[in-house]
């Protein structure tokens, strides 16, 4: 997913909790097949909401502190934040429309 920035424990606070616009984080792992299947959907959402929200990827194996801190029990997990507050959380595969609707609701509130 070349067009989505990957974040780690080192910059999660700055990029997500300190962001001034809605953020969708896709918690993923290299070994996770469903995460790979969801990857095109996450890319589509990143393109669709470019300029309105930011989408990041986080590999849970490379970022154990955030994994524990956010209580990630499985992947894929998607979390939507606004001004540092976690607004929505989903686990497992889903349609891009469902994920987009949740993000759009936060974007609308933020606007």
């Amino acid at each position, binding site marked *: 997913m070349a067009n989505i920035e990957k974040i780690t424990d080192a910059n999660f606070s700055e990029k997500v909790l300190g962001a001034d616009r809605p953020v969708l984080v896709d918690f993923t792992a290299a070994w996770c*097949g*469903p995460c*790979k*299947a969801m*990857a*095109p*959907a996450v*890319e*589509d959402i990143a*393109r*669709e909401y470019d300029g309105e929200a930011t989408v990041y990827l986080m590999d849970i194996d490379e970022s154990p502190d955030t994994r524990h801190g956010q209580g990630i029990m499985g992947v894929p997990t998607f979390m939507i934040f606004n001004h540092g507050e976690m607004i929505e959380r989903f686990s497992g*595969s*889903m*349609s*891009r*429309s*469902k994920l*987009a*609707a949740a993000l*759009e609701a936060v974007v609308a509130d933020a606007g």
Partner: protein
Amino acid sequence: MSQNRSSLLALIDNAERSGKADSALPFYATPASEIAAFASQHALDISFVYLVMTFATGDTAVWRRMIEALPEDADTRLVTVRWISWLWDDPEIGFRARIQDSVMRANGDAICALHHRAIRGEPVARSAWRQARAKLLPSGDSDAVEAAAAEGIAAAAWDLDRSPGVATDMIYPWKAILFAEIGRDLEWDTSKQKAADERRNHMVAAARAHAEAAVEKARKLGELSSEQLENVATSPLYQNAYNQGANDFLTQFPSELDRYGDRTRVAVADLYRQGREGLLQQIESLSAAPVSTAT
């Protein structure tokens, strides 16, 4: 037969012979860029490749059936659009029949119309797709089946050029529809689900105990190599004993609580069979009648 189709059928033959379909043909974990390259190489629309690989589930016979049924120079994007319309409209399977609200039905119809406009080459703005999705957000008083049916058609409301995988997204809400209908039939509620989860935990514990006892017995008899002992949980001995333990538990303690799980498993298998058959129908429709993109 076109060169593209011959080379693809040869690839399917090789995959069949080698028994390694997933390394030769795209599957759910194949990166999007490789799916796009595969589609381009074989002159197929990417959205069509997503559908075939989803319903083939690694079965080369399904790939062969789909590709052999394609007419020469078929417009495979049209197959995808017709499949979306079929899953929306079909009187038995379709999502449309699950929605009572006439406005919501019309909003679903509008999404199919947008796809047909796009395939005729008419421009459809990104905002039109977005508005179409927004109109299908369930209201608070929608029941679970109706809400999932609306989500099902909303799942397809994206430009296929930019988002070729959206037709397969319809499968998630399709499952949700079927599960909600089964739940309604069985009057399934959270307390029954909690009890079913507890029963499953007991079954897993019994199956693990059975498998571990089988491994211990084999170890004492010296029947396991050191390599097998390192990966014992994935060994056939462990897996077979685990399955036997689970079956013994289910036979010894039959319960009505298994009905929901049993029915949803059957429903998912039916979903994939129906989706496959529906896709084949759309492929065959290309040669059965002149190409029409009218809605």
